[in-house]
């Protein structure tokens, strides 16, 4: 699907290189780059993903249907959508889910981070550094690495399947807790494989540290959750590297979604400027919340925090994979089943917001619910629509380095910059063919 060669076009015309769908990202979109007099004029990420209107059809649904519905926004991070939703709705009902139920939610989120990060590190991103079209083809030369990645991923999926019934669109999450909670024995059954995966995650950090990274360090504003004593999953204040520290209730006062003609995704900006969410932002803003073992693994691999190079997103993801595996093992060791799988719910009308850390960054939900428990209004701001502006700026900064190269090489470089963000276009529709246009 790579487009036609520009060689046959007359010298003075506008040169267009159309690249089909951007590969190894979740969902579909395109990139259009315009070059005038040898400088980058415009960079537009075009999201082609058809809109699905979740915020519209949530209106009139009952609050207890919301976790099942919002999961369908994304097959890669359904738990994130379920978590932001139940926390926002519990805010409205004045419900605080604590103790083992809170820890089980954290454990379920660990499963999603492990599965999602292993997918991106091994199958989607590593092929860029080692020069392959896919993880499956890479396996012919790097069988041990790919097999290791798939087994880590499987351990994450097994955790999600035990807690949620299945790994894609788990069924047990509900307002107030779960429909079923596991026994100690069931959780202990996962320990051997999770322990193996923890050691494999240390190996993963060593492996990605051996890749060569382009020297590229933009000046980022990082945004992530920060909790008083934990690495953030479900709770914390929204903080930035520029000193922002707010609660989820204040999100819409500082962050604004904008719409551009070239995209079905909305762009989200912080006080008018682009910013970055996700693993890189999280490890940098929460490095004092990582465990000593994680820091030791980083140091052994010759790396230190903060990481400011977007290509090292793969390092941040590997670090978080290790963290999530350690945390999962810790939570399993101290687990005592709760007295009931869920707390009783009393419906109350009101508005509630929540922000949780999806694998790709903060995910904001706001709901307005009436006295019958029906959704009157829903607002959802996914991580990729927050990163979209920043991806465009990274491309603008990176393109001048490769403009003298052949069109194919430029296209590949752009795709690599984009893949650093592990963008999820299905989520953001509310992402990529590349079209490079240049005046010669």
């Amino acid at each position, binding site marked *: 699907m790579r487009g036609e060669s520009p060689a046959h076009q007359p010298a003075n015309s506008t040169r267009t290189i159309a690249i089909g769908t951007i590969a190894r990202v*979740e969902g579909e979109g395109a990139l259009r780059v315009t070059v005038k007099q040898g400088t980058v004029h415009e960079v537009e990420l075009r999201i082609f993903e*058809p809109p699905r209107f979740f915020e519209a059809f949530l209106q009139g649904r009952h609050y207890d*249907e919301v976790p099942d519905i919002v999961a369908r926004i994304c*097959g890669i991070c359904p738990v994130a959508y379920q978590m932001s939703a139940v926390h926002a709705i519990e805010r409205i009902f004045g419900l605080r889910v604590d103790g083992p139920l809170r820890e089980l939610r954290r454990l379920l989120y660990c499963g999603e981070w492990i599965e999602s990060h292993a997918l991106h590190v091994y199958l989607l991103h590593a092929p860029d550094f080692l020069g392959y079209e896919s993880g499956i083809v890479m396996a012919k030369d790097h069988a041990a690495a790919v097999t290791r990645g798939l*087994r880590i991923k499987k351990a994450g999926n097994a955790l999600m399947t035990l807690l949620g019934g299945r790994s894609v*669109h788990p069924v047990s999450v509900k307002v107030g807790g779960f429909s079923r909670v596991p026994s100690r024995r069931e959780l202990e059954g996962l320990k051997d494989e999770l322990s193996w995966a923890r050691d494999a995650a240390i190996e993963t950090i060593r492996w990605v540290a051996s890749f060569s990274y382009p020297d590229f360090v933009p000046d980022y504003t990082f945004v992530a959750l920060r909790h008083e004593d934990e690495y953030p999953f479900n709770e914390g204040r929204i903080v930035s590297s520029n000193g922002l520290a707010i609660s989820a209730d204040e999100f819409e006062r500082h962050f604004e979604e904008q*719409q*551009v003609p070239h995209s079905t995704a909305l762009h989200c900006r912080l006080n008018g400027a682009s910013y970055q969410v996700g693993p890189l932002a999280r490890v940098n803003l929460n490095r004092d919340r990582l465990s000593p073992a994680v820091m030791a693994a980083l140091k052994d691999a010759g790396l230190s925090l903060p990481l400011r190079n977007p290509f090292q997103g793969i390092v941040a993801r590997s670090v978080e994979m290790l963290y999530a595996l350690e945390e999962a093992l810790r939570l399993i060791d101290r687990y005592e089943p709760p007295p009931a*799988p869920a707390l009783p719910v009393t419906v109350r009308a009101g508005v509630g917001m929540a922000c949780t850390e999806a694998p790709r960054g903060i995910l904001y939900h706001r709901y307005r619910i009436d006295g019958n428990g029906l959704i009157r209004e829903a607002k959802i701001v996914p991580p990729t629509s927050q990163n979209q502006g920043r991806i465009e700026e990274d491309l603008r900064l990176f393109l001048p380095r490769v403009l003298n190269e052949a069109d194919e090489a430029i296209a590949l470089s752009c795709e690599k910059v984009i893949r650093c963000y592990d963008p999820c276009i299905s989520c953001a529709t509310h992402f990529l063919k590349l079209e490079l246009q240049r005046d010669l």
Partner: protein
Amino acid sequence: MSFVEGQRKPRLGVFKFASCDGCQLSVLNLEDELLLLGAALDIAYFPEASSRMEPGPYDLALVEGSITTEEDEHRIKAVREQAKVLMTIGACATAGGIQALRNWADIGSYKQCVYPRPDFIRTLATSTSIADHVKVDYELRGCPIDKDQLLRVVTDLLAGVRPRIPADSVCLECKRRGNVCVVVAKGMPCLGPVTSGGCGAICPSMGRDCYGCFGPAEGMAKGVGYPPNTASLAKQFHDRLGLIPIDVVRRFRGINGAAASFRRESEAWAVKRTNSEGS
């Protein structure tokens, strides 16, 4: 059925329309078999997993997602022309998916609800299944599909065997797992009796009611090819479990709301709702 001529590896294409990517992820979730599949098949087009994007023809096209834009109406026809065997995967492709809830709404107000500039958004007023647009050879239901069911069907095709995809109700799988019935024991409005199995009765096993991910089962009373008795189940929900008509509408109007028998049932109860409000 001979899948491919001679010694050539069958060429696979995986195509996405309006969807969440969860069914494609189910392919990648075949952790133990993925590399074997990669060896048995020539993965010619699978953008979510590979940068290699070869033009057709394809021996097997897996299609995820529903048709919601004019562009996609044309694209699915092009995929069909390039595909020897076309198999739809998941509730979006087989029934329009959760985004088919727009079929009962005004698309203009939907655009206004989500986008500050609705005029930038081009979309159809409906979300429809792939079979509404082109001939489909096999359907794998589910939201998401069951990865083992996918593996079995692909293995059958590779072996030259015609795949059989059962559409018995969730109740059968639930009984086999030895679950206590959540309708009888907990009074939950479980869609299991009218929903196709394939999931392994996940929801009742997790202590809750089935919400219809695998779409309508094929008639338990009259046999294969007949719709399930949704009318009887809906009446039980209303008469015995105390659901009011709008609750019954919402129950059938979910992940597979646009599948024929679920659609008819929700529309019948929408009429009852209007009548009861009018009286």
